[in-house]
């Protein structure tokens, strides 16, 4: 494992570089194919609205995967993310247009742990709504 961030260089409150991830329909189609999750609410507007959703919604696991980028891009080696968990609090509707949705993710160190590990809390929003709850990770630093 080769984290590029030194444990000694962070403190509680250290901010991870925030990132924005555009989510268009094509991204949902690609994720469905790669993951094998073909639930119709992720690609069929008719099916999504028939169960009360505003539109096709992104896979929760796609949102979770994108949010992880704030961790893995920060620390260098993705394997340094040793724990990662989220609650899916709100769906991310992805309209059928050229813009889609925008997922905005920031992160902050909330606790210094033993063995040069830190706890990081992520905040993920789309259209101003918090879409992940208790989005937390444990990251192994150098």
């Amino acid at each position, binding site marked *: *494992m*080769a984290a590029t961030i030194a444990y000694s260089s962070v403190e509680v409150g250290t901010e991870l570089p925030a990132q924005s*991830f555009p989510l268009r329909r094509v*991204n949902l189609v*690609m*994720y469905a*194919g*790669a*993951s*094998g*999750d073909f639930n119709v609410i992720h690609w069929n507007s008719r099916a999504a609205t028939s169960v009360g959703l505003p539109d096709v919604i992104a896979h*929760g*696991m*796609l949102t*979770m*995967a*994108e949010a*992880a*980028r704030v*961790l*893995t*891009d920060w620390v*260098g*080696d*993705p*394997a340094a*993310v*040793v*724990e*990662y*968990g*989220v*609650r*899916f609090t709100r769906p991310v509707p992805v309209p059928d247009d050229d813009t889609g949705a925008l997922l905005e993710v920031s992160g902050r160190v909330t606790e210094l742990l033993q063995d040069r590990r830190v706890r990081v809390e992520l905040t993920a929003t789309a259209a101003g709504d918090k879409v992940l709850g208790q989005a937390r990770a444990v990251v192994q630093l150098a």
Partner: protein
Amino acid sequence: MALDQSFVGRSYPSPEPYLVSREKIREFADAIGDQNPAYRSVDAARGLGHPDVIAPPTFAVIVTSRASAQVVFDPELGLDYSRVVHGEQSFSYARPVRAGDRLVAVTTVEKIRSAAGNDLLTLSCALATAEGEPVATVRSVVVARGTAAGEG
């Protein structure tokens, strides 16, 4: 109708081992728009100390969701899949998933509860290599909306 509590503690054996390939990792990385070279280049992964390309942190769900499907679709449990949404997900890694792994996943029903008219099912998947090396513990909470109505 609330789900049968007697399922708590029940384990489901792993499906056939899942063989992790470099191409599948790259396809998954493309799908999440992640250009990290550790997912794509053996040299880059070796430079980080890994024997082969590694998978993104959430890749394991491909393997565990296949294993967990046995529970979700178990007719005896009777979960109404048309009402199921994904409530929570977590990964705790002993080591990253990497190309060449043959992965097995044993799923255990950890908890069943009802809240606000919903049935919540907590599943824990023990992910390991077919040779017995632990890789990760992968937990998910699936929520069946409105199925516990009348639970009081």
